[in-house]
């Protein structure tokens, strides 16, 4: 039974000498890359402007104006310094943190170069990254709940889509956004019941069951949308959850607008992250859930009701997916359109795998994807002459490189996808 704590220990304490040297070379490589790719391309005397506020704060907080070339040189030197330190004596268990730091230097250099003589809103970039990560993380947490208990759920996309639609419908009819969210959660739960019955009771191939739910959701929501929502537009006007600035905290420069001036879904995502992490890894409930996903027979002999635990996990996962679906309609755009989830549920599933079936890992993967996605949009706005088709690949490629190269191999729950047969 691999627990999260066991995984993190094996990852951070032991660093082989080869890895130490390779990492040192990588850091030096970053330093050279900053200098060659960006530094030499930048004219002296050019200023890079980073916007440090969005919305109401924009007038009061001055943007950050940095001399481009000097900034790049400092960042290159700092990266080289870290690289030399790594080669000389190594940072041991802090190596990954150093890697994150140097990667951060590199990205900041890239932005400094890309926005040289122009301006880029750094706070806006980070805020968009966070909101893009929300549906992905919620989808991933839905997957974690199901798969930690041993049931593969690829129907997250369909549950989200259906949740987005029923949320819109109910919120429009009742004129109450919270009832819309409730409807979305219930819809997710109902679809999850179908998935659970198929895969737990009848032991249908879980991929097949999930696919059926996805196809059904796309067909059904598109039908309802074209038949009702497009014709009777008052059914498609739920409104949205507005951003709710948390008093005091929202006024902090830079951090405030990024973290503390968001709508309900962002705060809820953080709450669920912590809740799920604690529940999974520090409670009896979580231990039982995970044991059912790792070795159901052993769990059964110890008196844990495998079927009931799996039903509960799948239904909770469905509720999470339904909630995530409501983000698209009620948290973002205030209307439903056909297939508006556009594959975010599947990305969420990928984030779950990359995040090694842990909530915070999945959030990290979602954030990475969100950041790369927002970054490519800002690059297009800055007028980088790269064809849009390639820019649009950036989030996928970046996520793959970072996760394959740095995070390494994940360990899925041992009994994931296997129906349990009681003897």
């Amino acid at each position, binding site marked *: 039974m691999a627990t999260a704590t066991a995984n993190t220990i094996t990852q951070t304490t032991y660093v082989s000498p080869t890895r130490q040297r390779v990492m040192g070379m990588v850091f030096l490589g970053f330093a050279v890359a900053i200098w060659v790719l960006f530094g030499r391309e930048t004219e002296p005397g050019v200023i890079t402007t980073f916007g440090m506020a969005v919305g109401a704060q924009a007038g009061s907080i001055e943007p950050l104006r940095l001399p481009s070339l000097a900034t790049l040189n400092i960042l290159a030197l700092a990266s080289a310094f870290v690289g030399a330190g790594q080669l000389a004596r190594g940072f041991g268990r802090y190596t990954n943190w150093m890697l994150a730091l140097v990667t951060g230097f590199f990205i900041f250099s890239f932005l400094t170069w890309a926005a040289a003589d122009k301006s880029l809103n750094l706070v806006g970039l980070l805020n968009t990254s966070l909101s893009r990560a929300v549906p992905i993380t919620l989808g991933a947490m839905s997957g974690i709940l199901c798969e930690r208990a041993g049931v593969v759920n690829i129907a997250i996309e369909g549950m989200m889509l259906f949740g987005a639609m029923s949320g819109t419908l109910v919120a429009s009819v009742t004129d109450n956004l919270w009832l819309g969210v409730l409807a979305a959660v219930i819809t997710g739960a109902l679809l999850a019941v179908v998935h659970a019955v198929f895969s737990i009771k009848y032991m249908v191939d879980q991929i097949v069951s999930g696919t059926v739910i996805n196809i059904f959701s796309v067909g059904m929501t598109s039908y309802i949308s074209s038949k009702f929502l497009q014709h009777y537009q008052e059914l498609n006007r739920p409104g949205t959850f507005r951003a709710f600035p948390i008093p005091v905290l929202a006024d902090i420069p830079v951090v405030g607008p990024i973290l503390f001036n968001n709508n309900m879904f962002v705060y809820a995502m953080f709450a669920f992250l912590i809740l799920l992490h604690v529940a999974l890894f520090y409670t009896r409930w979580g231990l039982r859930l995970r044991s059912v996903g790792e070795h159901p027979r052993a769990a059964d002999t110890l008196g844990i009701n495998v079927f009931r635990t799996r039903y509960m996990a799948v239904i909770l996962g469905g509720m999470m997916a339904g909630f995530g679906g409501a983000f698209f309609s009620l948290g*973002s755009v205030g209307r439903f359109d056909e297939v508006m989830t556009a594959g975010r549920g599947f990305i969420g599933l990928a984030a779950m795998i990359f995040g090694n079936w842990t909530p915070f890992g999945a959030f990290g993967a979602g954030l990475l994807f969100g950041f790369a996605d927002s970054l490519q949009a800002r690059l297009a706005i800055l*007028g980088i002459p790269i064809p849009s088709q390639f820019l649009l690949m950036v989030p996928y490629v970046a996520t793959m490189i970072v996760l394959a190269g740095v995070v390494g191999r994940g360990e899925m729950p041992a009994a994931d996808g296997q129906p349990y047969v009681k003897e």
Partner: protein
Amino acid sequence: MLLKRVNVLRTILALLGLVLAACVGATQRHAMPTAPQAPTTAAPATQPPSTGTTGIKICQVTDAGGIDDKSFNATAWAGAQRAAAELGGEAKYLESQQQTDYERNINAFLEDNCDLIITVGFLLGDATAAAARANPDQLFTIVDFAYDPPFANVEGQIFATDQAAFLAGYVAAGTTKTGIVGTFGGIQIPPVTVFMDGFALGVQYYNQQNGTNVRVLGWDPATQTGLFTGNFESTDDGRALGESLLDEGADIIMPVAGPVGLGTAAAVRERGNAWIIGVDTDWTVSAPEYSNVILTSVLKRMDNAVFEVARQVATGTFKGGVYLANLENGGVGIADFGAAASAVPDAVKNALPDLTAGIIAGDIKTAP
């Protein structure tokens, strides 16, 4: 034993999927007026059906959006109705619920002695071509499609949207307070980028004429690179790109990505102090909930184009080939300013007629 049970269940599951799919299909079919024999299914003519030989019979096949989609179908239908009223005759329509209906609806009209069959939208291209090839004596016109090589009995309507987008760009450049306007597209394909080209050149022209330095974010007509969502579905992408453009200082945004643009409208409405420019149809009609943030819309005037083709049929001047709808024949244009009327400076409004004349005369380039 167990294996058998699993197999049985798999079969049931597969069947259930089919049944559900069939249910969706069946309900649609019932609701759908396709049978030509049933008089209730075809729309009543706007005029009493003409009994004599005078007057033309105009028959419209919609795409899946339905006749009151407040978009392409509704606009084309308005043109058909106007033609029936002004030229004398009758107009009727059949709604398609899915792609398999196109052929059936066209065939229904082929047996109905229509003088002109209008097919609405790019998706009907193949079905229209097949019908036109098999029935060389029947006249067709199709919205948003041009055949190569052209058919003698089909007039494909192509819209010079760059001309209208140019006007919108000029208006945006004259209206912006931050000196920055933005645009983005769905997928980088010519029908999308032609809007963005016109928009950017309109802004450039305003700068030339007025010595200003309004910047366009999201599209560079010189390098043909810019900002795209990569799809036409994810309205959340539209919101994110809208927020990004607003963050970078743009206060007027033209999203060229179908419904994705409504996500941008949501972001603009929430942030305030910014405008949005609709495309294809008048968004104050198709998305009235956002009418207080809509500056104007870049219009494809299907109604005028359909009317013009119907007039050609009535007067015996139908040519076939391509009908280019442009500013000159009223086939494209920009919508009234509506709620934004007070935000647009009078100088800009007064410059529009001259600008239109210049574009029609070919003195002003609207495409790079």
